[in-house]
């Protein structure tokens, strides 16, 4: 019976089995489908991301900057170059077997001493011992006594494993020679070369040239391996002056390497190598001989000087004192040097960032404004008793006893204040302000140098009302403005451009420091439209005659020499710094007077509270004479070459 019963039940049981088996198959099939789907998803759809992850894990990129281009003066003299910067380095990668052996040695010694070893600390000690061994090799050759810091090694090990570890930086030519001769050729210690900026003329044109500092922000360009873990050698980036303004032009092309690495992150095989390339050169308009002559003539004075070639607007020299030796700022700026320059006020480029009242040199603007409006003629004669009354206030002429009767030429020659008080009030503030704007004194000149100030002031009633909460403009303000005092503030570069404009008879000259030649970046030459001054040639000749007379027998006579007459105008302005009086001495002029080639503006800052420096004629004019002599002396030789 049981057997029969079993036989009866068998098909049903088999059927139930079958159903469960089918269910099991389905589950298995589902699982396999899921697996296959997952596999397909990863293999087909996520291929890119896995490839990228694999690359990230297995490859490393090293970026090496190209050397920067050189900067030359207008005659091809090197102003900024690169000097070799040698370092003794070791690739930690090559020391791995030694690290391992040293680790085992140190570990065994600890065990022999019965100490419980801390493996992490032992690894650090082993690495330090090995690197110190190579440091000792260098110490022996160069007779030094340097010690490696474990913390530095560890930091390098964890952050810059693929870059060489520096044992000795910036080694001299002698030490370099000793190392390459006495280090074994297969030593892991290598002498590597990099570049540091080199300034053959030291502090000459320091502000115009500018300086560089280390940066890891390298232009990568078309280098492959963007997503890879990247190690970078320090590059250089321009911080001020031409180095900053033309950073991209001067910057070398970054080179790179891509390495496959082992699981420890050590180099295995170089896959890609692209060589760094040197940046492009830059030819400036500066004349280094003129620059040095100007700086030498400046001596210990504070201030600025700018010399411009009248025909082209090219800046021949730009002095700002105090300055600094650019070689002190490379390869890095030490704190002491930074503090010293900061204390002296040397970081400021006074030629383009210093704002000063122009004093009597501004009378040229007042003159042309008066000529334009017919309020000044050559024959216009004003009596100067030594003072001028505006309302209840008395304005003095610098000649307290008075100049007597002065016409236009004499007024420029003698720099008579009373003449300009009178004519300034006659023409009104707006005429003077408009004339100043016509010469671009209200805006930056547009020179290529960065950080040219935009805070210059050409005041008028609207400006004063806005600046001083609705305060009215008084006749006294106009009298002050007509002799370049009061609220008026401009830069020495603007005054040099203004002088070049009077010499050439046009406005809108854009000064430039970049030569217009192949290979150079486009300059800002003629950025503004050149326009005629707008007064007749005869009127312009009157101004020139006044300036020539000043250079011959007047206040600017110290700028002339027996070989040439410089047409010029001096100025002396009073300012208050920190609540104490200080004197500014100005000279603006051009030479030779009969064939204008070069225009200069010189400003000398008196020491605060001292006021001991002489006026523009005594202090600034002799510096201008040195510049003129240097330029005209060289021109005799070089004019045929240009």
């Amino acid at each position, binding site marked *: 019976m049981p057997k029969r019963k079993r036989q009866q039940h068998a098909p049903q049981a088999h059927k139930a089995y079958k159903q469960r088996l089918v269910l099991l198959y389905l589950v298995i099939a589902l699982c396999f489908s899921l697996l296959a789907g997952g596999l397909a998803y990863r293999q087909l759809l996520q291929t890119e991301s896995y490839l990228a992850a694999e690359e990230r894990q297995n490859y490393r990129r090293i970026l090496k900057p190209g050397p920067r281009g050189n900067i030359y003066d207008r005659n091809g003299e090197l102003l900024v170059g690169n000097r070799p910067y040698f370092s003794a380095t070791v690739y930690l990668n090559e020391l791995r077997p030694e690290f391992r052996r040293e680790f085992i040695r140190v570990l065994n010694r600890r065990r022999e001493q019965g100490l419980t070893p801390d493996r992490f600390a032992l690894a650090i000690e082993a690495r330090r011992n090995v690197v110190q061994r190579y440091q000792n090799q260098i110490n022996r050759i160069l007779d030094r006594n340097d010690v490696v810091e474990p913390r530095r090694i560890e930091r390098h090990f964890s952050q810059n494993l693929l870059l060489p570890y520096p044992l000795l930086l910036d080694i001299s030519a002698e030490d370099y020679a000793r190392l390459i*001769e006495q280090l074994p050729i297969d030593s892991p210690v290598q002498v590597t*070369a990099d570049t540091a900026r080199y300034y053959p003329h030291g502090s000459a044109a320091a502000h115009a040239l500018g300086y560089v500092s280390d940066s890891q922000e390298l232009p990568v360009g078309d280098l492959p391996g963007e997503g890879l873990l990247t190690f970078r050698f320090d590059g250089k980036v321009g911080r001020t002056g031409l180095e900053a303004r033309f950073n991209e032009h001067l910057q070398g092309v970054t080179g790179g390497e891509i390495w496959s690495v082992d699981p420890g992150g050590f180099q295995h095989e170089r896959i890609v190598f692209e060589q760094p390339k040197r940046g492009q050169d830059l030819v400036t308009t500066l004349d280094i001989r003129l620059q040095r002559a100007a700086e030498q003539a400046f001596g210990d004075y504070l201030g600025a000087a700018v010399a411009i070639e009248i025909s082209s607007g090219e800046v021949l020299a730009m002095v700002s004192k105090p300055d600094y030796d650019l070689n002190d700022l490379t390869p890095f700026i030490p704190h002491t040097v930074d503090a010293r320059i900061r204390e002296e006020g040397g970081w400021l480029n006074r030629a383009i960032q210093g704002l000063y009242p122009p004093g009597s040199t501004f009378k040229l603007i007042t003159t042309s404004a008066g000529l334009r409006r017919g309020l000044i003629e050559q024959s216009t004669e004003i009596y100067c008793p030594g003072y001028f009354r505006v309302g209840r206030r008395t304005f003095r002429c610098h000649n307290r006893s008075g100049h007597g009767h002065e016409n236009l030429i004499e007024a420029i020659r003698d720099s008579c204040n009373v003449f300009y008080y009178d004519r300034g009030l006659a023409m009104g503030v707006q005429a003077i302000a408009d004339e100043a704007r016509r010469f671009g004194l209200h805006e930056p000149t547009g020179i290529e140098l960065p950080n040219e100030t935009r805070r210059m002031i050409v005041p008028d009633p609207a400006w004063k009302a806005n600046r001083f909460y609705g305060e009215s403009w008084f006749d006294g303000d106009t009298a002050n403005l007509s002799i370049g005092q009061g609220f008026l503030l401009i830069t020495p570069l603007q005054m040099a451009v203004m002088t070049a404009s009077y010499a050439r008879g046009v406005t809108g000259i854009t000064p430039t420091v970049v030569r217009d030649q192949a290979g150079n970046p486009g300059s800002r030459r003629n950025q503004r439209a050149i326009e005629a001054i707008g007064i007749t040639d005869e009127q312009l000749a009157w101004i020139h005659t006044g300036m020539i007379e000043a250079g011959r027998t007047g206040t600017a006579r110290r700028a002339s020499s027996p070989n040439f007459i410089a047409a010029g105008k001096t100025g002396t302005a009073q300012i208050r710094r920190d609540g104490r009086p200080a004197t500014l001495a100005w000279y603006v002029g051009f030479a030779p007077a009969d064939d204008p080639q070069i225009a200069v503006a010189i400003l000398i800052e008196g020491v605060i509270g001292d006021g001991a420096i002489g006026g523009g004629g005594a202090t600034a004019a002799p510096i201008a004479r040195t510049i003129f002599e240097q330029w005209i002396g060289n021109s005799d030789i070089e004019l045929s070459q240009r």
Partner: protein
Amino acid sequence: MPRRFSHQGKSLLLGVLILIFWLAAPTFIKQFSRVTFYEFQAPAWTALNYLHDLQDYWNYRQRSKNELIEAGIDMARLQAAYSLRIQEADAIREELGRLERFFELPSLPDYHYEVARVVRRDLNNWWQTLTIRKGRIHGIETGQAVVYSRGVIGRVREVHTYTAVVELISSPRFRSAVHIEGDLRPVEYQGGVNPGLGTPSGMARTIPADVRIPEDGSLRLISSRLGGVFPDGFVVGHLDRIQVGEDGLFQEGRVRLDPGLNTVREVAVLIPASQRRSERVQE
């Protein structure tokens, strides 16, 4: 036949055992064996060299009297010329000494020289060495400069009792600091890969970017005392062409070395005077 196989098998086994022993042997045993082997070999080379000298001697004995007279006359001329050069050198040395005293400059390092015959040449792609017939007992030490009449030969690599091995400047394992004549900046020189025959050459690197090859000639590389091994002024080779190096900072170029390097028979080892002085003090 099986007997022969068995004999071969024993030899093979012995060879394998020797190889295993050699691989497992401590370093000092290997070093000792190598030096001993060399010291046994050296007398054979030296003897061979003496035989060559004897051969040359008999060769010269065969010359006619006329030839000998002509050679004697040439030698007398040379001697006169060299006497004059010696006098000039003495005068220059005195002038140098006077200037050093006047400007209170440190004296230039002084050298003595030890002339040695070449007993063996070993020239191939991997190394280029000479074995000379002077050794430790003559005051020669590792690292000393070796020169000959036409310039630098190399540096002493190994010193044995009666012989020394000189690494030639054409060897890829030779590296030195040199000057371009008239330019005091150091330049790196390294020997190249030179097969045994042909004109030897090397590579000059870290040549400053402003150096140019004159249109009608080549630049002469001379030794520099900056490296601390060679004195100034010995000719290393000539640079006919230079190009911007891989790093873009410097230039580099192949240095043409003197072909006489491969046939030189006599050299001088420069022994620093300071070393001689310290030896005398120890005595």
